[in-house]
């Protein structure tokens, strides 16, 4: 019987939630790495028993943990993230130059086909790759060397590389996103990059159409239609139909176009989910009502999904990596909140229920659909 494994990173540890394909009863194991910030936990598509976790604290820095038995046991692997060459400077919040300094790993992206290959997106923004299942890490320096690097500036949460999207047609094609620099694409395995921010408009920067400086929060893509991308930006929900060359707004009738998370239905490439959050100052749902918004038509027209979600006195946030989908029939959708709840829907979002509700603040949610 197939099943689902939900990998949850929180402010104080990692948790693994498992269920059979009915997704009615859940077993919760953890905390793994209690007391540590777990920014991201993700399994290898090529070997679902291999899972990676990014573990950090302000005191003792960054560790990377790996499990080879589906999350039962873990061991630390390599944690040395050294920038290539002289790192140089990026902009600081006040506009002055600031040396590039490694702070933490935000996102781990295992290869679609090779269980030993994994990418890491880090703060200060850079992309690292490991070819030995995390034992050693090498920067792909062409990204920071793109030419615009000295102009990159951190968002309020730090200058983080938080989104890594692989092209299922070509392993050399990657799209990444950085807060607050924007989105970038490589077609040669990370040697050279181009900014793909045409059409993004950001009122917070002097030139709203600038090549870089846009605060992209997250990008999602359906594997069957790799040239269509969906983006939640600081403000605006955006779409590209040409692999990121051009973007247009699809916020439509959303109550607010601010938010962090965006994801795509496993079987319907035009069904998209966002969780609108009130303004960039408040960071909680409008009116204290937690609502996922779904568009069945690829954007513009959005419907609120409320069944099973708190509709009063709810002031949690849903962070950029805290939503995922499974690939069962029908599609399961999952998201975690800063209030420690993980909500799941086994019917594409029509109805929801918390599958665990008193965890530390949730930083990331990933799902593995198991055979």
């Amino acid at each position: 019987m197939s099943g689902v494994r939900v990998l949850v990173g929180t402010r104080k540890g990692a948790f693994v939630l498992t269920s059979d394909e009915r997704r009615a009863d859940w077993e919760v194991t953890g905390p793994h790495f209690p007391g540590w910030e777990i920014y991201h936990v993700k399994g290898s598509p090529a070997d679902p028993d291999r899972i990676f976790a990014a573990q950090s604290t302000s005191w003792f820095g960054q560790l990377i943990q790996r499990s080879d038995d589906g999350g039962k046991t873990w061991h630390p692997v390599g944690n040395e993230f050294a920038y290539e060459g002289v790192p140089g400077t990026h902009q600081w919040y006040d506009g002055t130059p600031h040396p590039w300094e490694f702070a933490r790993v935000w996102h781990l992206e295992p290869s679609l086909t090779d269980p030993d290959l994994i990418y890491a997106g880090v703060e200060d923004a850079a992309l690292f790759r490991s070819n030995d299942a995390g034992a050693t890490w090498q920067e792909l320096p062409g990204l920071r060397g793109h030419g615009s690097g000295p102009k990159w500036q951190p968002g309020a949460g730090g200058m983080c590389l938080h989104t890594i999207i692989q092209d299922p047609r070509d392993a050399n094609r990657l799209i990444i996103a950085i807060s607050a620099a924007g989105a970038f694409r490589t077609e040669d395995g990370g040697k050279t990059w181009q900014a793909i921010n045409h059409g993004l408009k950001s009122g917070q920067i002097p030139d709203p159409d600038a090549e870089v400086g846009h605060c992209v929060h997250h990008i999602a893509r359906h594997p069957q239609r790799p040239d269509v991308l969906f983006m939640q930006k600081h403000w605006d929900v955006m779409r590209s139909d040409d692999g990121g060359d051009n973007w247009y707004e699809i916020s439509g009738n959303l109550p607010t176009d601010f938010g962090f998370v965006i994801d795509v239905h496993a079987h319907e490439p035009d069904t998209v989910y966002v969780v609108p959050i009130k303004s960039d100052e408040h960071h909680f749902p409008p009116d204290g009502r937690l609502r996922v918004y779904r568009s069945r038509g690829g954007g513009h027209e959005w419907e609120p999904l409320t069944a099973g979600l708190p509709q009063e006195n709810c002031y949690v946030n849903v962070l950029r990596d805290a939503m995922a989908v499974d690939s069962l029939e029908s599609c399961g959708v999952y998201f975690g909140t800063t209030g420690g709840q993980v909500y799941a829907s086994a019917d594409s979002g029509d109805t929801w229920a918390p599958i665990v509700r008193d965890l530390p603040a949730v930083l990331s949610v990933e799902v593995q659909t198991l055979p």
Partner: protein
Amino acid sequence: MIRVHLPAHLRTIAHIDGEVELELDGAVTQRALLDALEERYPMLRGTIREHGTGKRRAFVRFFACEEDLSHEEPDAPLPAPVVAGAEPFLVMGAMAGG
């Protein structure tokens, strides 16, 4: 025999129960002690000292014999009671965070 007391998080990472006991050849210095510690427990590399620079991490302090040794030179000799194993070398996390 040198005794080293680690904070709970690092004991967990290294699967250590209680104090670490290290045998050091040559001068007993902060650098030699931490080198030996990291050689035995490679997973601690980068957690007490930064990779590359070897600099003490900002929120980590070193104490022994009721003295703060955090700002001692890495190659300065450690106090005699630490060298003799009478007192442990303490690695502490700063009182901060939540």
